């Protein structure tokens, strides 16, 4: 552990507790990060693989971009193809899709916070020193949900047996072992988080089971198709009741435990409400009315320079992807429909090329996307639930609205969004149940693949705004582009040298112990990186343009 403020370079590779393969480099001066580089480490080539295939098949392939944000790429692919065909799926099918996407986003947020992020903030070993009675009292106070001290006693006993075995498994070499100056929860608070970490594992599988009633299985849905969905059996009253029962079982954990834990963290780590800032935000609209396709429950847009007084609509024509600092042959920045670059690996060079990811820019600027972008947009527009819940959290933690633009704010926004979305799902289920009462409820409509067309699908998925762009020629996939949230957030610098959101967010963060730089993890994790999704390559091939993921 350093006894005076550190100056030097730190490389963290692999970044763990993310999806995929990521390397982060920072330059630290006097214990504060002065510069940062984000480098993705894997390239697979999905967009090359779908070329020439029937567009209606592509969703199967691109769904395998990611098993964490599973279903999202399949859904947005189907939307892109239906957009190209000018086709609208029946309302009951759209509702099934909303339920699948909604359960996905909530499941993903929950697992991310508890099982990928929370270990940056709470100390499992310290939970062993807690007083279970005091912990139960504190938990009830902050979450509004009664806790039996016996439950916490048992969690502690289980942890003790685990630690005493001497085999620490996935906790080996944890940063908090032996104490860490940046871990500041009390033993009781650590016990609360530890108990919720374990209960969260049980809750997530129930949310996934609920989704599987409509998706056929989780991970990797199979019931969503171009034209609608296939799941007639899922609309039976007993199946809808099964979903409702699981939904009701999971609700208390989301509304109480998850909310309470963010209050604990917001209070204990006020500095994390000050670092981790980015500048500009954008996201896409989603969860539209199944009949009209309008009035989205998540309203997208653009918010510049953290200004909560103004929002704008997103103009797709202003999106360009840069390859200057990525492992590609040189090319000027291009719109997704016109990408033309060859992959060329040249090794890590912080002053040159250093990542497989491309750098998307909107009107030339880096944009953060994801739950913070969406909640900030909603907050700026005065959307009631977001304003109430975010203000409640800010007040409980003695923070101000500008603190939402931070590592802790991003993490709290994820919680607020999960809770709001989860509570909305009940209504969609009721709507579907009412429609399902008709024995001939339509969930699939026939379609005709055009010979030549272009389409785009948008989605507000867990980590931000996702879009797929398809060009169809001869009835087959001629070009396929995936512009993914984690590329926006975790790509490299652009041609103008502007730092990507994660790189910008790291600058100004403290590093207490360069051997265990947990502050880097706290901030990087707050973006919920999903790197399998993030990597793009555009490959030149005889005038055809296609992007490779």
């Amino acid at each position: 552990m350093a006894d005076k403020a550190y100056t030097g370079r730190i490389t963290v590779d692999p970044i763990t507790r993310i999806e995929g393969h990521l390397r982060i480099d920072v330059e630290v001066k006097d214990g504060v990060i002065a510069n940062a580089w984000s480098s993705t480490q894997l390239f697979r080539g999905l967009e090359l693989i779908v070329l020439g295939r029937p567009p209606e098949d592509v969703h199967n392939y691109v769904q395998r971009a990611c098993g964490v944000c599973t279903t999202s790429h399949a859904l947005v692919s189907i939307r892109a193809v239906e957009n190209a065909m000018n086709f609208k799926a029946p309302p009951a099918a759209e509702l099934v899709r909303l339920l699948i996407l909604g359960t996905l986003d909530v499941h993903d947020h929950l697992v991310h916070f508890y099982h990928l992020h929370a270990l940056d903030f709470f100390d499992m070993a310290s939970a062993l020193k807690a007083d279970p009675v005091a912990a139960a009292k504190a938990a009830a106070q902050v979450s509004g949900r009664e806790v039996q001290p016996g439950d916490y006693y048992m969690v502690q006993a289980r942890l003790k047996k685990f630690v005493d075995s001497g085999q620490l498994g996935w906790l080996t070499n944890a940063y908090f072992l032996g104490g860490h100056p940046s871990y500041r929860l009390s033993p009781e608070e650590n016990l609360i988080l530890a108990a919720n970490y374990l209960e969260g594992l049980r809750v997530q599988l129930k949310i996934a089971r609920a989704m599987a009633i409509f998706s056929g299985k989780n991970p990797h849905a199979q019931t969503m198709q171009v034209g609608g969905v296939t799941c007639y059996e899922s609309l039976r009253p007993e199946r809808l009741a099964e979903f409702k029962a699981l939904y009701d079982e999971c609700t208390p954990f989301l509304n109480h435990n998850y909310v309470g834990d963010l209050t604990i963290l917001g209070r204990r780590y006020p500095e994390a409400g000050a670092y981790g800032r980015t500048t500009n935000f954008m996201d896409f609209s989603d969860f539209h009315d199944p009949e009209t396709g309008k009035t989205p429950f998540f309203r997208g847009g653009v918010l510049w320079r953290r200004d909560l007084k103004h929002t704008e609509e997103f103009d797709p024509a202003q999106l360009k992807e840069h390859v200057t600092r990525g492992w590609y042959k040189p090319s000027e920045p291009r719109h997704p429909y016109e990408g033309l670059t060859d992959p060329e690996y040249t090794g890590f060079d912080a002053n040159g090329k250093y990542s497989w990811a491309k750098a998307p820019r909107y009107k030339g600027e880096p944009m953060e996307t994801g739950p913070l972008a969406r909640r900030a947009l909603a907050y700026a527009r005065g959307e009631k639930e977001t304003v109430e819940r975010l203000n409640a959290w800010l007040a409980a933690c003695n923070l101000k609205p500008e603190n939402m633009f931070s590592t802790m704010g991003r993490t709290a926004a994820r919680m607020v969004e999960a809770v709001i979305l989860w509570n909305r799902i009940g209504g969609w289920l009721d709507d579907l149940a009412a429609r399902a009462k008709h024995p001939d409820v339509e969930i699939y409509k026939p379609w005709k693949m055009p010979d030549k067309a272009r389409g785009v699908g948008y989605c507000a998925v867990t980590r931000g705004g996702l879009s797929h762009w398809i060009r169809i020629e001869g009835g087959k996939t001629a070009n396929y582009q995936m512009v993914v949230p984690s590329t926006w957030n975790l790509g490299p610098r652009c041609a103008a040298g502007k730092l990507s959101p994660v790189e910008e967010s790291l600058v100004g963060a403290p590093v207490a112990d360069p051997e265990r730089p947990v502050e880097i993890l706290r901030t990087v994790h707050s973006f919920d990186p999903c790197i399998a999704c993030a990597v793009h390559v555009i490959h030149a091939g005889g005038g055809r343009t296609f992007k490779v993921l």
Partner: protein
Amino acid sequence: MSSSARISAKLLERQLEGGRMSRREFMKFCGVVAAAMGMGPAFAPEVAHALEAKKRPSVIYMHGAECTGCTEALLRAVDPYIDALIMEIISLDYCETIMAAAGRRAEEALEKAMKNPAGYYCTIEGAIPLRGGGVWGQVGGETMLSLFSRVAGGAKGVIAIGTCASFGGIQAAAPNPTGAVGVGEALAAMGVKPINISGCPPNPVNYIGTVVHLLTKGLPDLDAVGRPKMFFGSTVHDKCPRRKHFDAGEFAPSFQSKEAREGWCLHLLGCRGPYTYNNCPTVQFNQTNWPVRAGAPCIGCSEPGFWDLLAPFNRDVLMKGEKA
């Protein structure tokens, strides 16, 4: 009892046994596994004894060219739950998705686990990209090929989880830009012969059951492509509940048809069940569903090369000369 109280009560009951599953549940689990392994429920105590060893076996879990869907599938496991698996049955000494340490400390955890005097088992999720010496996939500055050679080469047993690790998977679909191959193919020269638990993703029961078999009875009987016969011995078609419709010649002609609504056979809509070895119809996913039950034709996701061999989906397999 309210649902939250029910969750609490279940947690408490579980933990009342000194921090493990209740004895009754544990024996029930062992019975299920014994039956799946073809041993008969009478062998449950034998399975239980092997699993209750003082020192939990070390497992190193590596991620290659993958989507993390297989890891997520394990999180859906019930009896044992994932927390029981990693706290009471095995010691998961390296797994980038959930491990606490990062960077150099994570690498040190890996090296320490590899030096375990009791040895370790290696599970690999994801394919290994070979083109260009493997630069298309790196971990900690080392290519996946090099890293996995070291880790798998020193393991007591290797399991390839998922179709990507078993056979190359999605990134190996034509034109396979990165030269991705399955673990068995990439590491054949080293003599590594993984057990392939294929599926996209696989049913967690198949992976956990294989781990238990390894720990209690050793290597299970494998089919011609390295999959345990106890899980991959029959086709989806063999055990499909819609079989009576297939036999009666009752095929749904379209997704919007009355016949589809009534749950007729999905063969004409592209069901690959007859060509696919897996236990989806009997074990189901998430304890509640599987594609055909939900009206979605099987795409053959546990078969080698299915992304090309069994495509295009949603229609009968192509005849010679037929175009997609």
